[in-house]
């Protein structure tokens, strides 16, 4: 269960650094990151100069945030393990002129271009998202969502999900240990035990939900959430939002002009 804990709860490893990027209001950071990811996705295939411009801006943000490069690359490495399979399937899809043949697998020109394009876009999007989560703790991100007008109830549900994830993971871990202690070989492999554990976990979650609600009522909760307090964005913050948005608009324009 330790493995589950680490990525979930030490995400914002660079949150306390002092840097121009961290001094931006969290909602400006969130907007900038979303615009950059959308811009990367919206670029037509093979628009290399624009991808380079995007990479330049992302690189500048990473430098401005003073996030240690090793940390960022480490996270990207783990994430690429998961998307790697997808890239392999694009690479060997065999469209266009065959370039290299590795036994039954053929790398063809169009497939290679598409693969590199997808790789670049994935890399940029993940770099931006990692930058955001490395520098912004999850509660702050949720507060930023509320400031941007996301319904307060939805944010509150996300907040309690985040809060109780750790408790649930702990409970799942202790139930698994208890099952193993009574001779179940591996609770994760034994479907009958796992099913029962998940059922028990659901019931406990339900009971906990009731108790949490009672604790909220006991402290005067009446079903409504206070309005969010927020400060106005400064010039630098507007700039940090507008530049990625311009990039997004440019990417959309290119996308609709270029033949698919």
């Amino acid at each position, binding site marked *: 269960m330790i493995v589950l804990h680490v990525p979930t709860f030490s995400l914002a490893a660079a949150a306390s650094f002092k840097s121009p990027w961290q001094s931006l209001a969290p909602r400006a950071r969130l907007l900038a990151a979303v615009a950059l990811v959308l811009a990367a996705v919206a670029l037509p295939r093979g628009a290399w100069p624009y991808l380079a411009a995007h990479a330049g801006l992302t690189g500048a943000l990473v430098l401005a945030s003073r996030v240690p490069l090793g940390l960022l690359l480490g996270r990207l490495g783990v994430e690429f393990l998961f998307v790697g399979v997808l890239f392999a399937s694009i690479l060997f899809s065999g469209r266009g002129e065959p370039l290299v043949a590795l036994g039954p697998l053929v790398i063809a020109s169009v497939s290679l271009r598409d693969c590199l394009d997808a790789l670049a876009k994935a890399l940029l999007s993940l770099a931006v998202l990692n930058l955001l989560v490395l520098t912004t*703790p999850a*509660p702050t991100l949720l507060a930023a969502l509320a400031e941007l007008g996301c319904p307060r109830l939805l944010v509150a549900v996300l*907040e309690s999900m985040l*809060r109780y994830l750790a*408790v649930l993971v702990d409970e799942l871990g202790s139930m698994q240990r208890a099952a193993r202690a009574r001779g179940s070989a591996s609770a994760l492999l034994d479907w009958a035990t796992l099913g029962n554990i998940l059922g028990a976990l659901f019931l406990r979650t339900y009971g906990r939900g009731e*108790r*949490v609600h009672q604790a909220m009522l006991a402290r*005067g909760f*009446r079903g409504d959430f206070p309005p969010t*307090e927020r400060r106005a964005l400064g010039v630098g913050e507007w700039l940090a939002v507008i530049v990625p948005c311009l990039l997004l608009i440019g990417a959309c324009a290119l996308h609709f002009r270029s033949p698919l």
Partner: protein
Amino acid sequence: MNALLLDEVQYRYPDGTAALRGVSFAVGVGETVALVGPNGSGKSTLLLHLNGLLRAEGGRVVVGGSTIDDRTLDAARRYVGLLFQNPEDQLFMPTVFEDVAFGPRNLGVRGDSLRKLAIAALEQVGLEPARFLERQSFNLSIGEKKRVALAGLLAMEPQLLVLDEPSAGLDPRSRRRLINLVRTLPQAKLIATHDLDMALETCERTVVLDGGRVVADGPTRDLLADRVFLEEHGLELPLSLGG
């Protein structure tokens, strides 16, 4: 005036089992009373009545001079601070500050005064505000969680503190700190506990509940020294009295 008055309070669980069969006692302003009894005696159910989370089916619950009903519910919740047995149930906001501020925010406190209240409450429970305000609730130790949960109540400035098993699950040092803390709080207190040594140290009076009824109400020192009576009701002599 009494901080709390229970008058023939009755309650049945939804399946029809009688949980409280006419419970009556009072807690005076500034008084600290222990509520002891075996598992299933109705202690936790009774505590949920004290700020209207459960409503008595017979009798009345009077806090700060007014009987709890729909009209007085908000005032009762401001008057009574209820500490739940498991701090995980009580600390539901992502950061310590947000959690401590949850109650006062519901009372309409905002901005700087909210922050000041939270800081004062953390100081009162002996947690350094600079270190704890922005900590995430799930990363605290159990003792810290209990104290943050208590700070969340104190920030609402209640007149009566109702604590459900405050010392359960604490190591000796955290337990000692909690006992010292409880002794310094000026509010009236009702402490439900199986920790009879703590009851002996913190409460001048004890109410013993068994089978949904009050079976004894008197000075802690006398009640908890009566081995035969305690054993009749599923309890034992406190260790400090040779138990």
